[in-house]
C-alpha cells in the first residue's frame, strides 16, 4: 500500500524485535468477542487512478458556481481568489504542520496568526481578535456564551435578521446549556423593533448586518440601548467583504464582532471548512474563546510569537475553560491572511465597491421584472426579492435555464407564511453584465 512504508519483511523483523509472533498478540487487550475476524465489509484498497475516477465521477454530478451565472449567497459567497493563495497554503510546511505548540519551530504559523489577528481587528474596528473559530455560526454561539460570562446573565436576544442557521446553532447550544434565547421573528425588511426587547436581564443582543436578507442595519442605537442596560452588542456578518465599504461594527459600538471570513481566500466547498472571525474589546480578552497568538521575545531577545493566555483554554483549564474549542481553522486563516495581504485596505475597498456596484446593477434589472419587488433600502451585495410565486419553484425553474438564482428563504425558514415567496439574491465581482442580463431575462420568463 503506497502510504505504508513497512514491507512484509520489515514487519516480520520488527515483530520479532518486539517479541511477538503476530501483530494480533499486541491487540490482545481487545475483548475477544469484539475482535474483528478478517475484514470489515467495505471495498478493498484502490490505486490512485481508480480513486481519482470514483471521486471525479461524483464531482461531475454537481454544477460548479463558476460554470453558470451564479447569484447564490445567504452566508457563503462566490469570490475570485488569486492563484497565489492556494499555492501558498499547500506549502508542506503550512499544510502538514500541527498546532504551534513548539513555538521555536512553528514561527511560520504563529506569525501568520498574528498577522491574521491584526487584520481582523482592523477590519472589525475592534481592539483584539482571536486566531479564528470554526466558522461564523459557531463563533456566534461562542460569542453568546462569552457574553453570558462577561455579564453574568444568561438571556440573549437574537435579531430576526440573523441567518436562520446561525440562530439555530445559538438556540441549540444555549437551549441544552440551560440558557434563555429570545429570537425575534424573521425580519426581511430590517424594521423590527429590537430596542424594546432589551432589558436589565439581557446579556446580549445579536444583530447581523448586512442582515440575512441583505439589509444594512444601523447598529449605533442598538449598541446605545444595550449599553444602557449593561448588555453587550454582538455584531454578526456573513459577508466580510462588506467591511471594505460599510462602517465597521466596532465604530458602531459593538462589544463582540463575529463573522464568517470565507469570502476572503476560501472557496465555497459546499459549506466548509470556513473561518470564523472573532474580535472584541481589550477588556474582555480573558473571557474570549479560542486560541490567541501573542508577541514576545526569545532567549536572545529576538521578537517571536507564541500561543498565549492559554489558561483560558481547555487543555489547561479543563472544565473551567472559556470554551471547549481545540482545533481552529488554521489553514483557512492563512488563506484569509494571504488574500487580505494581496488586497490590502485599498484593494478590499475596491473589491467592495465592485460588489456593491454589481448588486446595484442587478437590483435595477430585477426590480424591472414584472411582479418582482425588492424589499431592501440599504444593502451591500445582497438583497431580497418578493416574487409573485413560491421562490423555491422559481429557483428550480431557473436551474432548468442554467442559472443559479439565489436562495429561497423557505429553504431555511420553511412553512412560515409570508416568507415562501422571498428570494435572497447575491451579486459579487464574479458576475458579468451578461450574467445579470441572463438572470433578468430568465426570471421574466419564469414569472410570465
Amino acid at each position, binding site marked *: 500500500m503506497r502510504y505504508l512504508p513497512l514491507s512484509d519483511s520489515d514487519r516480520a523483523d520488527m515483530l520479532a524485535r518486539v517479541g511477538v509472533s503476530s501483530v494480533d498478540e499486541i491487540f490482545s487487550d481487545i475483548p475477544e468477542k469484539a475482535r474483528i475476524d478478517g475484514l470489515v465489509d467495505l471495498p478493498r484498497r484502490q490505486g490512485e487512478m481508480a480513486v481519482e475516477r470514483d471521486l471525479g465521477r461524483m464531482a461531475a454530478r454537481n454544477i460548479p458556481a463558476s460554470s453558470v451565472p451564479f447569484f447564490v449567497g445567504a452566508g457563503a459567497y462566490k469570490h475570485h481568489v488569486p492563484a497565489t493563495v492556494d499555492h501558498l497554503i499547500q506549502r508542506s510546511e503550512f499544510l502538514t504542520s500541527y498546532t504551534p505548540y513548539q513555538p521555536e519551530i512553528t514561527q511560520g504559523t504563529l506569525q501568520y496568526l498574528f498577522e491574521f489577528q491584526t487584520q481582523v481587528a482592523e477590519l472589525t474596528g475592534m481592539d483584539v481578535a482571536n486566531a479564528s473559530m470554526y466558522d461564523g455560526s459557531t463563533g456566534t454561539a461562542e460569542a453568546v456564551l462569552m457574553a453570558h460570562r462577561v455579564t453574568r446573565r444568561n438571556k440573549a436576544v437574537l435579531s430576526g435578521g440573523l441567518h436562520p442557521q446561525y440562530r439555530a446553532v445559538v438556540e441549540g447550544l444555549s437551549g441544552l446549556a440551560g440558557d434563555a434565547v429570545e429570537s425575534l421573528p424573521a425580519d426581511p425588511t430590517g424594521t423590527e423593533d429590537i430596542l424594546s426587547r432589551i432589558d436589565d436581564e439581557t446579556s446580549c443582543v445579536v444583530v447581523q448586518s448586512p442582515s440575512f436578507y441583505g439589509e444594512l442595519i444601523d447598529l449605533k442605537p442598538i449598541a446605545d440601548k444595550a449599553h444602557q442596560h449593561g448588555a453587550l452588542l454582538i455584531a454578526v456578518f456573513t459577508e466580510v467583504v462588506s467591511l471594505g465599504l460599510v462602517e465597521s461594527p466596532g465604530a458602531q459600538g459593538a462589544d463582540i464582532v463575529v463573522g464568517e471570513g470565507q469570502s476572503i481566500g476560501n472557496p465555497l466547498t459546499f459549506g466548509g471548512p470556513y473561518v470564523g472571525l472573532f474580535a472584541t474589546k481589550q477588556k474582555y480578552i480573558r473571557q474570549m474563546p479560542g486560541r490567541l497568538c501573542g508577541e514576545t521575545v526569545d532567549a536572545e531577545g529576538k521578537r517571536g510569537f507564541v500561543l498565549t493566555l492559554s489558561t483560558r483554554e481547555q487543555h489547561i483549564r479543563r472544565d473551567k475553560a472559556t470554551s471547549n474549542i481545540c482545533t481552529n481553522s488554521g489553514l483557512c486563516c492563512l488563506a484569509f491572511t494571504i488574500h487580505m495581504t494581496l488586497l490590502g485596505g485599498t484593494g478590499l475597498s475596491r473589491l467592495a465597491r465592485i460588489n456593491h456596484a454589481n448588486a446595484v446593477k442587478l437590483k435595477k434589472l430585477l426590480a424591472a421584472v414584472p411582479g418582482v419587488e425588492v424589499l431592501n433600502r440599504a444593502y451591500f451585495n445582497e438583497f431580497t426579492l418578493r416574487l409573485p410565486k413560491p421562490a423555491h419553484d422559481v429557483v428550480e425553474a431557473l436551474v432548468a435555464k442554467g442559472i443559479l438564482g439565489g*436562495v429561497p428563504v423557505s429553504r431555511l425558514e420553511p412553512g412560515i407564511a409570508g416568507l415562501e415567496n422571498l428570494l435572497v439574491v447575491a451579486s459579487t465581482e464574479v458576475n458579468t453584465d451578461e450574467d445579470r442580463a441572463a438572470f433578468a431575462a430568465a426570471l421574466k420568463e419564469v414569472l410570465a
Partner: protein
Amino acid sequence: MEEALLFEIGRTDITGVDLDEPDEFEPELGSLARKDPVELAALSEPEAMRHYVRLSTKNYAIDSGLYPLGSCTMKHNPRLNEKAARLPGFGDIHPLQPLSTVPGAVDLISELGHWLMVLTGMSAVAMSPKAGAHGELCGMMAIKAAHIAAGRDPKIVLVPESAHGTNPATAALLGYQVVAVDAREDGTVDPGEVQARIAEHAGNVAAIMLTNPNTCGIFERDIIEIAAAVHEADAYFYCDGANFNAIVGKAKPGDLGVDAMHINLHKTFSTPHGGGGPGAGPVVLSDRLAPFAPLPFIRAGKDGPVLVETEAGTEGGEKPFGRMTAFHGQMGMFVRALAYMKSHGSDGLKQASEDAVLNANYVRVGLEDLMSLPFGSRWCMHEVLFDDTFLKDTGVSTLDFAKAMIDEGYHPMTMYFPLVVHGAMLIEPTESESRASLDLFVATLRDLVMSAKRGETERFSGAPYLAPRRRLDETRAARKPILKWERPAPQSVQPEAAE
C-alpha cells in the same frame, strides 16, 4: 533569515490584486458607508509570495520529518486528497445552491457516512461537527437531548483523569458537573471504580466520557463491563475517538458498547492539520442516540440519499436536537477522508492500524531499557508513554529533553500529557514512518538520554540552539498580551542608520 511582519514591509497605498474601479454608480448603502479607509497594508504578488514562503520555512511539518506528537497523529497527508478536494464539483459548489444541482455532493457525504458507520459498527452518524471537540459537544448534546426526551436530566459526567481537556470542558459547557474516575495502577479504568462513582451519584449520572485506546496508549480491556455499568445506570457511554486510528479494522466501538464517538478525520483519516485546523469531527451514534442526531442529516431515500436540512423535513422517528453549525459540515475534509479511505480500503485501513501499533511498540522496545515506562514493560497501542523517572537527578526536565530533540531535527513528542503521569512524554510515530526512520529516531533519543545521564545539561537547558528561535518567553507574552501589530506613532521618527 529574519522576516518582518507584513505590516512592516507592506504599504497601504498599493494593492496586489488588479481590480478596475466600477463605472460611476449611485451607492445604496444608506447612511452606513465607511468613513475612513481600511488601514491595512498590502504586498504586491512577488512580495507576498516571498513573505509567506519565507515564513513557511520557519515551520516543522510532517513532510519535513518524523512528528511524534502523541494523541495528535501526525501521519502522511496524500496529495491525491488535496487534488480531489479541489475538483470544481466539490470545491466550487455553494452549500445552498439547489439540491438538484449537487447530487454528487450528497452522495459523497452519504458514502463517507456509510464507511464511518461500518468501521465503527454504529447506527447513525452526525456529519456536521467541525472538529473533534465540536463532535464531543455534538455527542454530549445528543446525550442530553435523549435524557430530556426521557424526562430526566441527570447532572454528572464521569471523566477519567487521563482524559483530553476537551472532555471536561465539553461537559462543563453543557452545565454538567465533572466527576473524576481514578485509574488503576496500569493506567486503565477499573469497572469497579466506575460502578462506585455511579453508586455515589445514583440516578444523577448522565454519561461517562472515555478515550479508548486511552491517552496512555493502552486499550481499556474492561471497556465492555464499563459500558454495561453505565447503561445499567441509564447513562450513556461517550467515547473520545481521538485514538480510533489504533483500532480501525481491529474492533468496532459499537461492539464495545459505545453510544457516541467523534472521529477526528484529521487524525484517523489523514486530512491535513494545517497548522492547527481545519479539522472535522463526525459523530457516530448508537441506536439509542440516533434519533437525536442534529440537522442536517442524510436519510436513505428510494432514489438515493436525501439531505434533510430542517425540522420540516423530519419523519416520525427523527428528533434532531438542533444544529451544530450552518450548512453541512466540513465538505473539504470529507472529500479528503473518503479519498484516503478508498485508497486504503478495508485491508489497508486494518494494515495501517497494525503498522501504527507495531511502530509504536518498536519504538518502545528500542527505548525501554533507557527511558522509563510508567506502567511497566507492556504492549502499547499506537503510542508509547514514558515518564520522567529516567531523568531523575540529571537536572534535565521533560521540557528540556523535548527542546533538545529540536536540535536533532525532530519535533518533540507530546509533553506533560496525560496529566496522570509525571513528566509525561507521549510518542506516536504513526504508520507513516519507515523502519529506517524509526531506527534513526530511536538512536537519536538513546544518544540524548545518555547525554542527559552523563550530565551534559547545557545541551538541554539552552535548547533549542539550532531552531529559527531560541526558547520563547511565554510568561512575558501572557503578562501584558500583545495580540496585534500597532502602527508606530508617527512622531517617533527613527534616527537614521543608528547602530
